[in-house]
Structure formats: C-alpha cells, structure tokens
C-alpha cells in the first residue's frame, strides 16, 4: 500500500509550528480533477492512497490556495510540503500579527523576490536559494487614508487613539475601568495589537476613538475571563467614515479558523472542515461554556439547511446563554425554516423579540437574520391591516443600529457615540477622551 503525507510549513521559520492545531481544508484530486479525499488538516497527516498521480490542494481560511503534484509510486510514502502565501492582508498575516505581535510587517509583494511565496512543492527544496535576499523595512501599512505619511506621524496618530470596554446585558451596562481589562499593547510602526481580558459572562463591546476618528464599537466574542487580542490597522478599503482604519478582533482558534472560510466565501472548503469545527465547538461549549464557536456552527448549519447536524444546538444556545442574542436568533430561524403552524410562528416571533431584549448580536450575520425575521413578522401584520406594534417598535430600534453597522466585519461593528447612540454623523469625531478610556499612547512601553 502507498501513502501520502501532507504538511504545511511556515516559510519564514521553516517550521511546522504555526499551522499545528489550526484547521486547514485540504482536498486531494485525481489527475482528472475528481475530488478523492477531503479533510481538515491540524498537523502533518498521512493517508493511505492508491498509487497514482494526484494534486494536493490546501485552502487557507483567507481563501488563499496552495497546491502541489504528487506522483505516488507502489509502496512509497510520498511527502508533500505546502508553503502558504504570506499575503500582508491575508488571514495568516492578521493571525500572526495578533499571535506574535512582535512580528515585523513584510515587504510589499511588489518585491520581485517575494513572488515565490505562495508556492507548493512536493519535495523539500532549498527555498532560500530562490528567495535571495529579502529586505525588511518599508511598511505596506499606512494608517489613515492620507498616505503616504511619515512613520512618526503614523505612530503619533496610533498613540492618540483610545479604547474603552462596555460590559452588560439587556442593553444595561457600564464602562469598565481599564485597570481591570486592559492587559497591554504592542506597537509597531503602523499597527497596534491590544490584549483585553473580560471579567463577566455577558455582552462585551470595545469602543475605539481618537482625534479625527469616528467612534466605533466592536462586539467581543468573550465570556468570563476570556483573553482576546484586538488589532488596529489600516483598512483595505479606506473611506471617509472609517478614516482608513480598521479594528479586528481575534476569536479563539475554532472561531477564527471557521470564520475565515465563511468570510472569504470559501463554503466548499468550509463544508469539509465543518465536522471538525463542530466537534471542537461543542467541546468548548461543554468544557468552558464558550458559546461563540457553537453560534458560528449553528449559523452555518442553519443556512446550509443541515438540520440533521444542527440538532438541538439552537435550543441549547438560546436557553443556556440567556444573555446572548445570537442563540435566540438561531433558534427562531430554525423554527422559521422548519415549521408553518401558528404555534411555531408565535414561538419564533417571541424568540426574535427576546433577542432584541438581550441586546445587539455578537455576529453581524445574526443581526442580519434578526432584522430579516422581524421584517417578515412586520409584513405579516401589515398585510392583514393589523400592524404588529411590538415587532415594529423593536424593528425600528434595531434598524437604527443596522444603518450604522459595518456589514463587512464578522463581529458586529457599528459607529456610535455610545452603546445607545449609533450614528454616522461627523459630530462624533472629537479629541475629548471619555471616562474609563485607555489611551494607547499611555501604554507605549508596555509589551505584551
């Protein structure tokens, strides 16, 4: 019998460490293009295969793809080494920025010598021979849209930004003193990675503000004692509103890997790692009561219409986490997708209204489902000339947020002066630092 070993290698360090424990979608095609193996790669994997020619493809959560040929002889163990792309804007880069915040930002891909990165080889080769000399230095990031600006100015602007944490449930909450949540910050020339520790099992929203910057909130997928990293860097799509700046939060590994596939639109790949992710998410739910991976799986299975695997997950998320809007929303939509009886419709309506009582969902797509569901009930009332006043009232409230939400972010992100004041108006820009805000510059020397 022959076998095929597949492994992903971090090109910079020539090491397997970075990809160990991640969930990477790997697919093996025969030479006619028919898919013969699909699996989630978390460490080097050896498969028994028939002798023959194959293409081994790994798709990363960023949507990046690397592939290599494998010509497996009779009785041979053939090894395929894949070297994924190190795109500055890709998931890998963001992951590395946050996991290893002292990482230096790489040179732009304009550098001819870097075009080799993103390649895959079926045999070990001396990559450095082809790489030549790689230079460190010029950053690809320039914060705020008025680029190019000096590195010093960029650093000053970063230092002037502030963060504050809102914790609470059912729309009632408060800003927490930075000393109890702000764990540290790592500065590089044009980006910063902050570490945040949440105290309570409730909704947590982090607000970013600063001079000339529209204030914005981002939902944190955080429970009691969660430690999260938040990246502040330039936006891929600078606009007047976002001031060329983006705020990203890194969930845990389960959430982050799966979210990558969903955000990148690579649902074929998401499908064949979903079993692995679902198992991990259920374990987290049982062992640490962390519901965020399970919410993501619930959302995915709901859209896929995979009710066999969805089982009673929506009910568990709804009842087990009475502060979390997302669980009630997924529960409501499971009912809407499966039932048409008056009793079921009544229950679905009630769960949607309950979700609005709990607060703003953690995931942007759950907010979309919430508004869509409420609109269906609103239309129903209006169609029989009996407007559903309760639905219309909560829908109006949620629409105020919807208008200020950045729908491209996976975790709910909205522009607003305060949790109860979403707005896109310019007057929210200002230099004043609010109470309980941690100014990033204060912590300039503090390393994570």
């Amino acid at each position, binding site marked *: 019998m022959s076998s095929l070993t597949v492994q992903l290698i971090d090109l910079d360090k020539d090491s397997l460490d970075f990809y160990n424990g991640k969930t990477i979608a790997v697919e093996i*095609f025969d030479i006619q*293009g*028919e898919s013969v193996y699909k699996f989630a790669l978390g460490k080097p994997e050896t498969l028994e295969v028939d002798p023959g020619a194959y293409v081994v493809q790994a798709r990363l959560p960023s*949507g990046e*793809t690397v592939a290599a040929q494998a010509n497996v002889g009779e009785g041979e163990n053939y090894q395929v080494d894949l070297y994924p792309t190190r795109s500055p804007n890709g998931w890998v880069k963001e992951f590395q920025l946050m996991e290893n915040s002292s990482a230096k930002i790489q040179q732009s891909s304009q550098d001819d010598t870097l075009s080799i990165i993103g390649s895959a080889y079926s045999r070990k080769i001396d990559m450095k021979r082809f790489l030549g000399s790689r230079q460190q230095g010029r950053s690809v990031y320039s914060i705020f849209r008025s680029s190019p600006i000096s590195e010093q100015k960029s650093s000053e602007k970063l230092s002037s930004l502030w963060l504050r944490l809102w914790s609470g449930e059912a729309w009632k909450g408060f800003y927490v003193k930075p000393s109890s949540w702000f764990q540290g910050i790592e500065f590089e020339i044009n980006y910063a990675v902050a570490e945040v520790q949440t105290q309570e099992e409730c909704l947590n929203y982090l607000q970013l503000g600063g001079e000339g910057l529209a204030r914005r909130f981002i939902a944190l997928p955080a429970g009691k004692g969660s430690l999260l990293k938040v990246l502040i860097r330039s936006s891929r799509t600078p*606009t007047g509103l976002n001031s060329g700046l983006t705020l990203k939060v890194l969930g845990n590994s389960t959430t982050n890997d799966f979210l990558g596939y969903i955000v990148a639109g*690579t649902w*074929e790949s998401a499908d064949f790692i979903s079993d692995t992710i679902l198992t991990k998410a259920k374990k987290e739910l049982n062992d640490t009561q962390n519901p965020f991976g399970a919410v993501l799986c619930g959302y995915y299975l709901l859209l896929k219409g995979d009710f066999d695997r969805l089982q009673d997950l929506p009910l568990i998320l709804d009842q087990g986490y009475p502060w979390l809007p997302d669980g009630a929303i997924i529960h409501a939509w499971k009912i809407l997708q499966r039932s048409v009886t008056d009793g079921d419709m009544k229950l679905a309506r009630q769960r949607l209204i309950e979700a609005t009582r709990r607060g703003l969902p953690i995931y942007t797509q759950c907010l979309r489902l919430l508004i869509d569901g409420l609109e269906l009930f609103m239309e129903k009332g209006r169609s029989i000339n009996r407007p559903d006043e309760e639905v219309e009232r909560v829908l109006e409230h949620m629409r105020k947020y*919807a208008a200020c939400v950045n729908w491209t972010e996976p975790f709910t992100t909205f522009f607003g002066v305060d949790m109860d004041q979403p707005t896109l108006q310019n007057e929210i820009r200002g230099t004043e630092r609010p109470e309980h805000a941690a100014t990033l510059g204060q912590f300039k020397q503090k390393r994570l």
Partner: protein
Amino acid sequence: VTAILDQHDPGVPQTHVLVIGVNSYKHLRGGSGQLCKEYNMNLKQLTSPCVSARAFAIWALKDFENELAPLGSVELLLSEGAPTQFALYEENEPKEVESATLHNIRTAFQSWFQRCDSNEENVAIFYFCGHGVMIQGDSVLLVEDFGADKLEPFSTAINIDRLYRGMAQSKAKVQCYFIDACSNVPHEGLKLEDSGAQSFITPKLTYPHRSTSLYLKASAPGDSAYADSAGKVSRFTSALIEGLKGSGFRRENGKWVVFTTSLMEAVSQSLEHMNSFLGEPLQIFSAPYIVGRAGLLIQERPPTVCISLRLEPRKALSCAQMKLKYARNTGLELWFPQPGGEKTKYTWEVNVEVGARYELSAEFNPPSYKNFTESLVVYPGGGYTPDPILVEVTP
C-alpha cells in the same frame, strides 16, 4: 417585455434568467431629464453596466448547460440612453430591447416570477448592473427613471434585499441573484426613515420553497464596485462569467458541475486575484445570503480556464521560448511566443482544459537559465501546479 429567448414549458424543469443593465439615468448628472436635486448623491451616467449585462446574457444564451433544468427563457432590459437592440450573432435579426425603467422592470419581473413559479424544480437567475446604494441597511438599486418623483425619488428604485425575501414564496427551488452595483451609504439616505424602494413582491411568512439560494453582490456594504475602463465589462461580472465558464466547475461523479457554493469560491478567488494585480481601489464582494448547495451548470466536457504562467525568477520569461502540449499527446501544441514571432507581452495567458496534465518545456536565449521540461497539472478552481515554475540560473 424583451424576451431574447422564450422556450418556456411549465411541464418541465427549466432555468429562467432576468438581466438588467442601466447606463443611462434621466435624473442624475448628465441625464436627459430634470436633475433630481435633493437625492442625486453625486451619481452620474455610467458606461459599463449595459456591456456587462449583454456579456451576461450572451453567456446564458451560448454557454448555459444543465440537463436537469435547461434554459427556458432570458429577458433583457437595457438603458443605454437611446433605443437599443440585441442580437446574439451578427447574422441574426436584432431584437428591440426595452429600457430599464421601473415600469418595464416590474412587468418583466412579473412574467419572470410566473415562469420561475411554474415548476418546483426550476432555477431562477436575476442579474442587475447599474448604480446601487445602501439606505438604512437595505440594498437599493437605481433604475433609469430614478428620481422622477421629487417627493418620492426612491419610488423608482428596487429594494433588492426585500425582493430576495419575497422570492422565498416562489416555487423555484434554486435561486441566484447577482448584483453588480455599489453599496455606498449616501448622506442623503441618512435622513430617510426607509427608502420606499419597490420590491415587486411582498415577503411572506410561509414555508420557504427554495432550498438553495446564492445572493452575490459586487461590493461589500459601504463600498464601491468597479469597472477598470470605460465601456468594458465590470470586474465583478468578469469574475462571475469566468466562474461560470471555467473556474467554478468541480468534477463530481464523472460530470463537471458549477455548484452555487463553488461559484462563490470562484468569484471570491477571481476578485482577490484582480485586487492583487490591479491594486487599490480594492473591490470586496459580499454574499448576504448563501443557502444550501445545488448544481447550477452541469456538463460532460471539461471546462477551460485561462491561466497565466509564472516563472521564477520572473525575468526569465523575457528570454524564454516555451511550448505547452497535452501530456496525452493529442497533437495540440501552444507556443510562447509563436516560433519566429515577436514577444509582445511578458505574461503568457493561455486557455487550458481543467483536469488535465500538460508538458511545459522552455529554452532560453541567451542561455542565462537552464532549459527545462516540467509536468503541469490544471486542477478544479482554475489553479495549476507547480506555480510558479522554478527556473535555475546557468552557473
């Protein structure tokens, strides 16, 4: 109504396509009507949408293949500023195409809905290219007579999100919506409670008939969609057609199939590639709704994709004479450049079959690099391996 193809048969499953392109806006800057002052959002006339809509309609008529739901109808509406015509081939009698006003679109939508609703195994495809904005979280598409009513300017616009929700009532079990438009949030829209845009169908709380849907938008909320030069097919539509013709195909049980999900992957990959090649402004697409997975196209023959061969180091290409031939020795040989020909480009873009092995050989003149022969495999998704092809420098 302009049906450029009408072979509707309610007794059998079919695919029904509605295509809309809007270049010309009467009440926006440069238009022939009175300017919509309060809500013009600084928008002006466009040049790409009708070219893009025509390209999509031509793809449907020429290349659509699905034995389970063959093409039943294609309706086309275009606003090009003057009466316009459509002919698939030059020798065909051209058909007059109606303009994309709200009234005409409503009429076309109603007949498209009836056709889609006539069989539970039907496939429904809706394509729009033109101006779009986001008003209070809803995607609103502007049509030719947008702004005709000063008091209700968006009454001649389409709320596509609401239309999508309303289409849950249609029996067509597979539904695709391709929206090639911007999703910017205009300041004018912030003043509105809601846009008041039309959806042509009221969403209902009913058991959803559709089991699969794919709703792709060329732009992420708050962002723009682009065409890279005036009068050319837009980036999103190019990526979409590329996915439908080649990179979206996967081989399953011996047949080549474009699934709704593999199409989305192909569009995502293609736009990302364009972004890395073209640089800023980047175009970030979005997929507001992806439900289920179904085959949209099914064919026996392998699809072809265009690959751009990369050598490493890149400059090796400038002195390379390369030959690509099928490994199974069909006699087909492709050359770069043609023997005796001049090299006018420094990238080799070549159309190749997916799921095939090729033999690539190169000779270098001057001999700065070592000649080589390499086995090249093109796999589903439009990728090839090895990529790049490593070239050794002559000592």
